[in-house]
């Protein structure tokens, strides 16, 4: 990863053959466009084999089911980018959705903002523990996952919580669509674009990528690694909260076992299929959009292609492995964990 970085920084370094450079350029191009190409190819196959798919609202279905996955995946990608992982974000989504369903009636328009602040703080607590206690994030967020799950069960009384009134404050996100793309999905796209600008052009964004590439190097370069880790986890919590909002917009209710409780693995898969490196330092939020679309397309595509529904999980697993194997940036010397 470091070598490709150096190559772009100074094109035509002494001793580099043209062939190697070309290969690297192609690799870089594939890294940038791979997720898009894979989605288009898959979508194309489905569209050709099932002509009614595109005309019959297939795009809307894929986009609306991709929306919560995309938001969770973007948050996850921020954490993966600093070389950590957040296993608790889907649990935060569910807890956020439950809190929103409970507060929307009494508090009205304040409720979404309040819930977003709360879930951002939840994320920040994860980040504070990872950064200042220096514990492995996988184990820590596995622990906080359990705590958030319990909190969701206790707060909701282990049943479905319905939005009593003011539901229209968020439901327009699902019912309004531009070019047959629901606002929930477009919200995710806007977040992705802002995230891309943040990562590409701001000092904290570049600092986060630096931490993921080489944390020791980043520390010695006066990158505020601990603060940025907290920010990355807070962003993950915030985006999990947005995902919870889209769930309320779509369903008007939330439950600890319902919509959103199985977002963790699709979220990680979408981030990775979108070209995010699991070891950190490589993230393109725009590609995460196509990662989320691909992940959302798989179950819909298997149904549209009249595969037996029981093969869905098998196809899903194969697609994850194949897509990552195709888009992975490898270097000969790197240790793969």
């Amino acid at each position: 990863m470091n070598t490709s970085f150096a190559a772009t920084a100074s094109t035509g370094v002494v001793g580099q053959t043209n062939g190697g450079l070309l290969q690297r350029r192609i690799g870089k191009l594939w890294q940038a466009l791979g997720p898009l190409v894979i989605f288009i190819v898959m979508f194309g196959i489905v569209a050709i084999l099932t002509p009614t798919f595109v005309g019959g609202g297939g795009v809307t279905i894929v986009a609306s089911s991709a929306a919560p996955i995309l938001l969770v995946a973007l948050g996850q990608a921020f954490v993966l980018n600093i070389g950590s992982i957040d296993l608790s974000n889907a649990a935060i989504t569910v807890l956020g959705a439950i809190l929103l369903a409970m507060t929307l009636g009494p508090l009205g328009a304040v409720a979404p903002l309040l819930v977003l602040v709360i879930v951002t703080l939840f994320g920040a607590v994860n980040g504070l523990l990872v950064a200042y206690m220096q514990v492995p994030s996988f184990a820590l967020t596995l622990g906080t996952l359990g705590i958030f799950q319990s909190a969701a069960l206790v707060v909701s009384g282990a049943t479905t919580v319905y939005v009593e009134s003011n539901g229209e404050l968020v439901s327009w996100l699902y019912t309004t669509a531009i070019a047959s793309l629901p606002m929930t999905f477009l919200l995710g796209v806007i977040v992705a674009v802002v995230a891309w600008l943040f990562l590409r052009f701001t000092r904290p964004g570049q600092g986060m990528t630096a931490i993921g590439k080489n944390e020791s190097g980043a520390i010695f370069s006066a990158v505020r690694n601990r603060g940025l880790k907290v920010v990355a986890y807070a962003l993950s919590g915030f985006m999990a909260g947005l995902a919870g909002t889209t769930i309320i917009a779509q369903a008007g209710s939330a439950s600890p076992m319902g919509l959103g409780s199985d977002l963790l693995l699709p979220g990680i898969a979408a981030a990775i299929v979108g070209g995010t490196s699991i070891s950190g330092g490589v993230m393109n939020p725009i590609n995460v959009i196509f990662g989320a679309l691909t992940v959302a397309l798989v179950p819909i595509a298997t149904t549209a292609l009249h595969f037996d529904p029981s093969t869905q999980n098998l196809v899903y697993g194969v697609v994850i492995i194949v897509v990552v194997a195709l888009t992975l940036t490898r270097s000969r010397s790197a240790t793969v964990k």
Partner: protein
Amino acid sequence: MTNTLAKPTGNVSVDTSELSSAGLTRTRRNILSGIGEPVALLGALVVLIAIFSALNPRFATITNLQNVLNQASLPIIIGVGATLVILIGSIDLSVEGVMAASGVAFVLMSANTRGGQDMGIWAFIVPLALGIVLGAANGLIYTLLKVPSFIVTLGMWFIGFGIATILYGTDAYPELTNETLTQWAAKIELGLPNVFWLAAALVIVAALVLRYTRFGRAALAIGNNEDIARANGMPVRKHKVTTFIIAGALSGLAGILATMQMGGTSNHIGEGYLFLTLPAVVIGGTALSGGKGGVLRTFLGVILLTVLNNGLVLAGVSPNFQSALSGAILVVAIVAAAWSQRGRLRIAK
């Protein structure tokens, strides 16, 4: 130190005595930190047992002990495989998928309520082979295609689950009709359940292998520093594939045993086992970064979490709080383990 005060002129002897005393404290500290964590775990276990015994007299009975050990056995068996994988610095998330695939294969090949033929010993061999094949696929894709183990095994989770779903089909829930099979796991032999004897035997074998064999030492070496292990001529790739095969076989075994315990199976048989076992491995003190830990620690970790869950149920605590308590204990355990090593330049992923 008193020596230095008594003989202020003897510079050389002062140096050596300081050195040797420093060396002594260092070794003593090493020994202490080596046994410190297991002792802390045992201490926590004793405290939990004392509290739960006080809360409910039914807790500290032989029947309940047998019950706890029966419950702990499958996480222990899975934990042995998970520990071996985590020791080399990788992770195996495919446990639940492999369990589902082997569990469904097992029930359909045994005498069950759906009918079909009883395949006898093959009902055990085929599901185990299925686990081995899925484990080997994990290991080979991971090492040959260099896809991170997290992603390979995540995909294999879905693949195993998919195989189970296809095998299961849409017919009625299949139950085992052979009572010898359904009662084997919980049957008490020499005071303890059969399935626990099996789990304990696997732990002991794995502990001995890790301590005394080339394979075991290589696991720690690879986890510690893979580049150096490779530079020293260790067959790293072969070792990794073998480890994933063992983990797959143990998940397959767990699928069979879970089916026997439940008396039947669906494709959801493995659900919850992964996120029960991984915290136990970490609480036991095996480092997720690899190279440090062992199966005996995992054994303690599983027992601790099982006692906690069992005790909470008997103490009348709502099950809604259980995952929070396990989670909180996990957080406290890892914070305590990392506390002494904190440093401005330390990297924790």
